[in-house]
């Protein structure tokens, strides 16, 4: 048995240097694989949707004929669903984070129990949330297969992510600012609304935008909740049946005709543009507010 010290004590010989070189290139290739795949993926989507992604595609309803088919109803459905999801999930997520960070005793059993719950919820597959939505919102509360049911399901799905990122944002608020607020006689709630939230809002929003863009690409839970496959009308209220971008894309990919692959690619391109824009906003927010107190 060599001691740990002997194991580490080596000499820098020529074969070793070559080995080091090789290892470095192996790692570089592994890293570049992801970059390469991303490139290929974007290239194929753009190539397959070339000529199909136009104004007519965005403003038309789905159709049984590929050349007339469009994504209008799915686009509106996605906007409605995601808007509603944001409306529910950001206040609830941020509120939960405020409770865990500011109101409850960090070492208490209750706090630990809620934290444990949140980390377990974060690991549940999204399709199980779909079953929860089907049971609770569609059946028990009889919201049927509506935008409301879909949005509530997505809200539960992304809450854990929003809570955790909001907690991090709230934790980054400098202690002396809070103490100054208490020192001039502010109550805890006044401190939260006057100091903690204004300071942590960019961080909370960054995390929320990323979580909501994830919800925008989710298909599985909404299929369980029964977002219909063929919707050829605009949503008028939150109790309407609906379809969303990912579900519409899923329907198109499962059709045998070649043309529908192009239509699916065009749908994917639109979805990716949405996601890139929202991620860019999140990253800009993060960079802008990262180093405020220096």
């Amino acid at each position: 048995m060599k001691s740990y010290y002997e194991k580490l004590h080596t000499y820098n010989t020529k074969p070793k240097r070559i080995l080091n070189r090789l290892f470095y290139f192996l790692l570089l290739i592994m890293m570049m694989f992801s970059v390469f795949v991303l490139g290929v993926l974007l290239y194929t989507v753009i190539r397959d949707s070339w000529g199909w992604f136009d104004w007519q595609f965005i403003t038309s309803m789905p159709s049984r004929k590929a050349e007339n088919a469009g994504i209008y109803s799915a686009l509106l459905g996605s906007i409605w669903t995601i808007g509603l999801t944001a409306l529910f999930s950001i206040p609830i997520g941020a509120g939960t984070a405020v409770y865990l960070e500011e109101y409850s005793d960090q070492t208490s059993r209750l706090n630990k129990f809620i934290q444990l719950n949140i980390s377990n919820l974060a690991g549940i597959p999204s399709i199980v949330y779909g079953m929860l939505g089907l049971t609770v919102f569609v059946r028990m509360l009889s919201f049927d297969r509506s935008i409301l049911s879909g949005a509530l399901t997505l809200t539960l799905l992304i809450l854990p992510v929003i809570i955790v990122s909001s907690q991090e944002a709230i934790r980054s608020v400098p202690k002396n600012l809070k103490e100054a607020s208490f020192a001039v006689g502010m109550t805890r709630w006044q401190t939260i609304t006057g100091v903690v939230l204004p300071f942590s809002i960019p961080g909370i929003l960054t995390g929320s935008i990323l979580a909501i863009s994830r919800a925008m690409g989710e298909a599985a839970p909404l299929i369980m909740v029964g977002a219909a496959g063929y919707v050829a009308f605009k949503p008028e209220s939150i109790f309407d049946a609906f379809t969303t971008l990912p579900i519409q894309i899923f329907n198109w990919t499962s059709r045998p005709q070649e043309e529908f692959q192009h239509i699916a690619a065009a749908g994917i391109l639109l979805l990716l543009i949405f996601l890139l824009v929202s991620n860019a906003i999140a990253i800009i927010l993060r960079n802008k507010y990262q180093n405020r107190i220096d």
Partner: protein
Amino acid sequence: MERKEARRRAQITEKIAKSIVFVFSSISVITTILVVYMLFSETIVFFKEVSIVEFFTSTKWTPTLQPRNFGVLPLLTGTLMIAIGASIIAIPFGLGSAIFLSEYAPKRLRKVLKPILEILAGIPSIVYGFFALTTITPLIRVVLPQTQIFNALSASIAVGIMIIPMVASLSEDAMMAVPDSLRNGAYALGSSQLDVVLKVVLPASISGIGSAFILAISRAIGETMIVAIAAGQSPMFTLNPLESIQTMTGFMVNISMGDIQHGTIEYNTVFAIGSLLFLLTLSMNILARRIVKRHKEGI
């Protein structure tokens, strides 16, 4: 007087605010209770109709066709194949990327590469499903012409690519947490960078890396849209990755595309499979947390 009034009002606001955020926090606990309750209440009904022994030992899965057979093994082998195939891709590439980012990449390169991984992580699984069907499958068929259009291999490669960023970022976090003093100590003893990575950094962060692997496999098991699009819809008791198969999640999606009615055996079947999926992924996630915790106490 006025100040007294203001203070009283502030105290009332304080109470109301505290109760509202408390109610918000309880939503997560209620969600957990509801998940467990809905899964198990429907699953109990299912096992009144179907024997547990048949469910876990039969190799035929035809819940919607006469004669009905409820053997979950074909779905389990399908799920297993996808998870193993995805790990074979994601673990080496994810770990390699993590070592590169944590130990080798200069700061400026990191700044470029990290967002690229974030973009990859943010791409919806439906897009990977499309990619598997239109790009990966044709490539496989060029090499192995006997491959079926829908097959486990293509889907598992796509799932693997999808979870690379997750493995990479979790492993990288674990390696970044290794203090520099350990690295410098090894350099002082004449180690090369390769020695430092293999003998110092990896052993010191092994628990975090292990837990990253487990979490990634758990994600692969729960992945739905890729397998629904690219893996096919035939529950086969096989370990041949070139054939069309069905996973647990794939079955759940396929049966829900039709309108399933509450109270039918199909409905209960979905929930029985959901329970199994839930138990599998939950136990893996708990295991992953345990590993990290143990290690932290050990230091």
